[in-house]
């Protein structure tokens, strides 16, 4: 029973209508405002890859913004992604369904701007805001001299220690960790940490100090050893700087050899796995499996929330030699407008709020990150207890080089770090390979405009 051609044509039209109907879903340019927004406002979509407890605070900021804005209604959506993975964003932007505001790790702003994912914020008047922000944070938001982001927070790294574990192991004299005496030496920390190590049935259940855990990154130890990661004059990355090589040798290669490469691996896989990471409340330091750990100021909020009875102390990141200047590095995030944003104007209005005084004040209080606004750093009420120690470090903190290959550089350094810790390569070879891989890619952007 064959259909007559006329019906075939009808079927064709019907089929195309069906395809068209399927492909135009989601266009909601005149969406009504959400609950909590004022009437007559226009929706601006905000994407963040953060997770709780940070997103709890971000939601509070969004709610406060929506309450006071008569033009914009922000809808916040948590999306998959991370510091260097923005696959969700890039595919959405290319598909025309991207957000109006995205929260992006600041050290990748130049890289994403170079790739063409971000809008230049000059037309919105962002260039006039440079004086409000910490200098290093503002520089990270630039690409070829133009602003592509507003910095919304920063942080700093220190050495945390568990007083109960140290004292139980017989380390009762903690005066060497007093910050007024400057940074402790790595030898001092090693001596204390070794007493804390504990094995049950041949496996570590407590490790005094595992230098790479948490924030003990390549950058952390490279800076502590006075290394330089980028040479602006030659436009080349320099992870093979002898000081960084030495840092890798001492802190990753030799340290894991002393604890036992396999034993340390087993400990890390059990209590601090990367595959994938445990929830915050099961963090190895918070649960008493680490004597010392390098981490940032946000851990203060974790301690309050998840381990209020843990007796901890804070000191500078240890240095190789007595009397060396203490070093730390500051990172942080920013808000950007991706290409093709449908409500860039509303998005920028929100960004000014989020990365402005009201937003940063809330975020600093609730998550114990530090603000990037100079005006807030002098407000001591925002930094109760130990948090003020971090603020004092900011003026001398290092920051990662803001390069158009920042994510690749991070990954290559991490690969070298893994090779050194597992003894699959000696640090000098591993770092040389990282330099070769990154410089090959960096050359297409040289010379870099400052």
């Amino acid at each position, binding site marked *: 029973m064959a259909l007559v051609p006329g019906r075939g044509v009808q079927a064709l039209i019907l089929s195309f209508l069906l395809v068209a109907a399927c492909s135009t879903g989601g266009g909601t340019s005149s969406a009504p405002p959400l609950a909590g927004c004022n009437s007559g406002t226009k929706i601006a979509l905000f994407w963040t890859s953060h997770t709780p407890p940070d997103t709890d605070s971000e939601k509070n900021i969004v709610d406060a913004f929506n309450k006071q804005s008569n033009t914009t209604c922000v809808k916040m959506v948590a999306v998959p992604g991370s510091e260097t993975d923005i696959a969700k964003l890039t595919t959405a932007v290319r598909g025309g369904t991207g957000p109006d505001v995205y929260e992006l790790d600041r050290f990748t702003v130049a890289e994403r701007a170079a790739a063409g994912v971000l809008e230049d914020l000059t037309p919105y008047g962002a260039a006039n805001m440079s004086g409000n922000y910490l200098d290093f944070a503002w520089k990270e938001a630039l690409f070829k001299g133009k602003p592509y982001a507003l910095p919304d927070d920063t942080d700093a790294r220190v050495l945390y220690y568990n007083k109960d574990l140290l004292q139980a192991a017989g380390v009762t004299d903690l005066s060497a960790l007093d910050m007024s005496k400057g940074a402790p030496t790595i030898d001092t920390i090693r001596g204390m940490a070794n007493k804390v190590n504990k094995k049950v049935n041949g496996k570590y259940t407590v490790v005094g100090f595992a230098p790479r855990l948490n924030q003990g990154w390549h950058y952390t130890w490279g800076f502590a050893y006075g290394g330089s990661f980028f040479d602006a004059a030659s436009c080349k990355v320099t992870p093979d700087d002898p000081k960084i090589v030495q840092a890798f040798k001492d802190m990753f290669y030799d340290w894991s050899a002393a604890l036992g490469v396999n034993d340390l691996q087993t400990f890390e896989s*059990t209590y601090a796995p990367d595959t994938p990471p445990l929830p915050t409340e099961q963090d190895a330091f918070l649960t008493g499996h680490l004597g010392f750990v390098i981490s940032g100021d946000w851990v203060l909020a974790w301690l309050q929330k998840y381990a209020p009875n843990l007796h901890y102390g804070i000191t500078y990141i240890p240095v190789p030699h007595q009397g060396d200047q203490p070093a730390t590095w500051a990172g942080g995030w920013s808000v950007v407008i991706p290409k093709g944003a449908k409500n860039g104007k509303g998005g920028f209005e929100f960004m000014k709020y989020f990365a402005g005084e009201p937003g940063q004040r809330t975020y600093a209080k609730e998550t114990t990150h530090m603000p990037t606004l100079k005006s807030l750093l002098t407000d001591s009420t925002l930094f109760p207890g130990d948090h003020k120690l971090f603020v004092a470090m900011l003026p001398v903190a290092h920051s990662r080089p803001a390069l158009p*290959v920042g994510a690749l550089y991070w990954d290559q350094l991490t690969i070298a770090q893994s090779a050194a810790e597992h003894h699959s390569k000696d640090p000098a070879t591993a770092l040389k390979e990282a330099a070769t891989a990154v410089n090959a890619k960096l050359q297409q952007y040289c010379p870099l405009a400052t």
Partner: protein
Amino acid sequence: MIAAPRLRRLTVDERRSLRTALPFIAPWIVGFIAFTLYPIFYSLYLSFTRYSGFGDATPVGFENYAHMASDPLFWQALGNTFYYTALAVPVGVVVAIALAMMMNQNVREVAFYRAAFYLPSILPLFALTFIFIVLLNPGFGLVDYVLELVGLPAVNWLGDAHWTKISIVLLAQLGAGGPALIFLASLRAVPSELYEAAKLEGAGPIRSFYKITLPLITPVILFDIIYGTILGIQIFTPAFVLTGGTSGGGAYTTGPENSLLFYVFYLYKTAFQYSDMGFASAMAWVLFVISVVLAAGIMRWSKGWVHYESG
């Protein structure tokens, strides 16, 4: 091989039928051209350019292909992928056949066993991977607990570069239910009189398996090897989930010592983390060529051992 029929002109009726049919399959044709054919050729073009995914693509000739030769990560990714495939495919075939034979037992509860063996195959790989992470934890995981109970040394499955790929091979076996069903169908297609005759001749079950069952299911084994190889060289999801997928959260970007940097994982990172669509497209085309060569090689090799009833 079936000879291709000679082309002849369509009759009036056939042409009318075609005209009627075309509109019905038009959505598929349009979809195929727009979402499959066009991207395939567009990626070929992109493989000769430098392109971030935004703005204009800059032609660079064979630069991306030349860069592959000097990129140590490319070779490591290729090596990891071959290692995994070479291990996963034979293990997969053996497990699937074993599973199929268990499903083929003449017992009353066979329906229950079939469902139980097949169940893990319908769970999403993403969820299975998370279950696996807990099972393989060296401190409190069930697998190491059992190993130690029987006096074997515990293994750091996901933290030791020597074991990570083996862990993923084991994980892949949870999905063996799919191929096992195909093997089950082929087992049931083996004529029972062959077994009866063999029994009369005095052959035991092992001899029957090697002399009757195995030769008669070789076409399905060949299918499973080719299918498994193609899936194997595209391995991505377990590695992505295991490593957290990203560099910022975990210290190891792609497993300890890059041991889980598989080809497609590196391709993904190149495209979406490093914004290098040109290099990623070139990698995709090289993978395509590798797949074709492997499949052709397996087909050629199979002539020596695959038994076709009609042949």
